[in-house]
């Protein structure tokens, strides 16, 4: 068993749980998406992705700006849930996954106490948000009252129907994505990437 699970992505059980959870709540598309992520993680773990493991991609700022601009225009001016929204989001997923798929370079340097503290603070906040959301979802379903127990989606829906709200959300979401992908981050000991 230990040999079989060697090198498993530790996030795989979490995403497998999400597949079950989304299936139980009737969100079929979300369940399919998390199932796809599980398959992708398994393919990566078992080295089934053809083409070998590439080095980290260097993407110019202009390309990133262009992708954000085109994506934002479509997501902003189209009716929510239109086929074009879906298409753009799927293309963005492919682009983001392509950017994250690169060779790891050695183990992480050990964390300082300051970094450990920072990690625990942010993990606690993320967990608190997830638990609050989960309990709101459960209470809303048990009491058949999503007004007294609103999930984040219930709160966000009217905001996203408003163009200004959509601009704010889109900006935050795009910036978080760029920050997570680290496409503009200066490589250690190197110059910043610029096209």
């Amino acid at each position, binding site marked *: 068993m230990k040999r079989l699970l060697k090198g498993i992505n*530790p996030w795989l059980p979490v995403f497998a749980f999400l597949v079950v959870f989304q299936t139980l709540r009737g969100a079929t598309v979300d369940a399919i998406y998390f199932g796809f992520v599980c398959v992708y993680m398994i393919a990566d773990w078992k080295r089934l992705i053809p083409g070998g493991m590439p080095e980290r991609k260097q993407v110019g700022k202009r390309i990133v700006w262009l992708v954000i601009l085109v994506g934002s225009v479509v997501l902003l001016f189209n009716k*929510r849930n239109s086929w074009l*929204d879906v298409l753009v989001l799927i293309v963005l997923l492919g682009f*983001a996954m392509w950017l994250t798929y690169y060779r790891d370079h050695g183990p992480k340097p050990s964390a300082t106490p300051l970094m450990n503290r920072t990690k625990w603070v*942010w993990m606690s906040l993320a967990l608190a948000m997830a638990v609050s959301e989960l309990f709101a979802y459960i209470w809303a379903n048990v009491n058949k009252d999503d007004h007294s127990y609103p999930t984040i989606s219930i709160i966000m829906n009217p905001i996203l129907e408003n163009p200004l709200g959509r601009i704010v959300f889109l900006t935050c979401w795009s910036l978080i994505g760029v*920050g997570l992908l680290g496409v503009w981050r200066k490589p250690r000991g190197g110059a910043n990437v610029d096209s």
Partner: protein
Amino acid sequence: MSIPEIEYLIILLAAGVAWLLPKFRPGALSPIGELVERIMHNRNTRIAVIAVWWWLGWHFFTA
């Protein structure tokens, strides 16, 4: 304001404090950028984090 809304607000405010604190007291917490750089070091975590980030966009834009 409902109980979940109060909870979300408290968590968002705490996140704002955690984000701004390193600018004023560098010894209290590391900047969020350094934490992100660290957690994105491993491909396993990179895939998981980006998958969740994308799903949030999907969830809200195609709701």
